[in-house]
């Protein structure tokens, strides 16, 4: 098999960090905060690397859009087994307004340029929780999409995708080239081992700008204000089951 898989990897605030809103409510505090690869992107990388190990594809290319620091995230993907990286450089200022549509345009342009057989993305990133980039990328390319994948089987010019949908699993068969998005149960990502971290140092990361791909970053969205979620209020204790039922009825819950 000679296909190429493009995998999107996003640098997000680490899942274990408590998010703080900036005092001026313009966004969240990112300075001095631990970042790591979006967990769903890790699953996407793992799936692509597994395909390569099974010799179903030839090459895995990890892509990330953002300022200089996203190269760390690309390195992590390379340490997990991706063959090379592409860093689409977006200044810190522009990055603030970079949304799913802009990233989709970049991914679509790269998918064409690299003649990818598959584009695999995480179903969403744990910072914005948008869950749009995969779908938009497929639309822009006019390729089939297999989203929320919990099982992927690549066979010739087709991909069988088991999707996690409300109330169960749906199995679809789509033709390649296609866009897939990884759900939580697709696989368990491997640890980057020390030998592979050292090898990743020697792998190449190409650097380009959105303009090189003919992508315009202007966004029509404006963030007005970011707030902390409301604090949970203390509960009340009830004396008996009847009281409980009464309270629930009062609250319109039953």
């Amino acid at each position, binding site marked *: 098999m000679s296909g190429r898989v493009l995998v999107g990897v996003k640098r997000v605030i680490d*899942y*274990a*960090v*408590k*998010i*703080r809103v900036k005092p001026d409510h313009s966004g969240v*505090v990112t*300075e*001095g*905060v*631990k970042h*790591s690869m979006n*967990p769903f992107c*890790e*699953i996407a990388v793992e799936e692509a690397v597994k395909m390569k190990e099974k010799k179903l594809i030839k090459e895995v290319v990890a892509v990330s859009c953002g300022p200089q620091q996203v190269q*760390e995230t690309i*390195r*992590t993907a390379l*340490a997990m087994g991706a063959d090379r990286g592409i860093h689409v450089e977006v200044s810190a200022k522009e990055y603030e307004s970079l949304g799913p549509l802009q990233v989709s345009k970049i991914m679509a342009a790269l998918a064409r340029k690299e003649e990818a057989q598959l584009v695999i993305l995480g179903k969403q990133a*744990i910072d914005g929780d948008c869950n749009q980039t995969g779908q938009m990328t497929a639309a822009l390319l006019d390729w089939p999409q297999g989203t929320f994948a919990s099982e992927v089987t690549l066979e010739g010019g087709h991909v069988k995708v088991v999707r996690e949908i409300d109330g169960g699993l749906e199995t679809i068969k789509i033709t390649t080239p296609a866009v897939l998005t990884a759900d*939580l149960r697709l696989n*368990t*990502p491997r*640890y*980057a*081992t*020390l*030998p*592979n*971290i*050292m090898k*990743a*140092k020697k792998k190449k990361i190409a650097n380009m700008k959105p303009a090189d791909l003919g992508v315009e970053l202007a966004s029509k969205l404006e963030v007005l204000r970011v707030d902390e979620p409301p604090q949970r209020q203390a509960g009340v204790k009830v004396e008996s089951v009847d009281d409980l039922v009464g309270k629930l009825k009062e609250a319109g819950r039953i």
Partner: protein
Amino acid sequence: MAVRAAGQIAGICHLCRSSTLGSFRTLCRNVSSSKHTPSNAPETPVDHLIYTPEHFALKESIKKIIDQEINPHVDQWESEGKFPAHKVFKILGNAGILGVNKPVEYGGLGLDFSYSVAVSEELGNIRCGGIPMAIGVQTDMATPALARFGSDELKKEFLRPSILGDKVACLGVSEVGAGSDVSSIMTKAVRKGEEYVINGGKMWTTNGTQADWMCLLANTSDGPPHRNKSLICLPMSLPGVHIARQIDKMGMRSSDTAEVFFDDVRVPSKNVIGQEGMGFTYQMLQFQEERLWAVANTLTTMDLIIQETIDYTRQRKIFKMPVLHHQTVHFRLAELQTEVELLRSLLHRATALFIRGNDVTKLASMAKLKAGRLARELGDSCLQFWGGMGFTNDVLVSRFYRDSRLISIGGGADEVMLGIICKYMDTLPK
């Protein structure tokens, strides 16, 4: 000179923030009690004195393994008095963590000692001292002499599987009558033809009940005590090797510690590491690394203890205000954090000098001395601020209080470190 006792090194722990990928931020917020604030953010790759981005990538990978494979089980292993060394070492071996500074031909990575320090620092996130200690015995105590001076055959048989995590190693130096004064050991290996016949016993042997082989220090002749000892690779399955008992300790409970007897144990003479009679010298060569490793390991835990104490005292109220708001508490914690940072600076300075080929015995001994003293002070001060909770076995601070006491005893006691420092200051009475 002198050396070790019980299980050397110490270091402790961290909160397992969440154990699977499934537990993302929202879930995490519910289960995790300690949070890094921006002011206490971990060091970043930018302009670090000794660490490159690869060091940080390595640390991140180890942190994941600890959070997913080790920390969720620590409480159980602590209560059982033993952790499954073969299972844990295999996971670490697969990730390449057990041989960072070992030769590439035998499965290691051939990197400089700064990577070992980074590994040790990160292992300080394990929520007990026993497991990091057991790992340290495997990587930096039982195997360095073998890696440097052992024959190709011995390295294939013992070093390679130890780096890959297939074999568990222990170090047989201390005895009932010899700890920090290594030169007084009594165990004898008498040459008979192509074999050594070994009689005697070892004490305080970390990993002893689970180990596949021992790096044994034994007297191979009657000569002067610094030139009559040899290091021998001893398979623990040989007839005549008896594990007398597992020692019941006040701390480091998840690490098994054995007393071992040898009764006419026959080992092929080719199992001697390097030259016969050089055992004591070989052991001495690795002291600098051992000591720096121990310091790195405990530093991370000390940071954690301070952070968890801040988190706890912030929400615990006394006399109508948070415990933390009492000046005696926040000032004391500031004082302790300052000491931790000073120790970290000494560690990184000594490491930077060491990887450039300098002898840092004096600095390493000072760092080891200070780590032991500071851990005792810090554990005691922080435990006090936890009040009654600190006296329970439910909290990390009490485990640290017990475990870290060993730092001043193992790997050369505080008094031995002082003796070495005095030698370098030329103040030791002749």
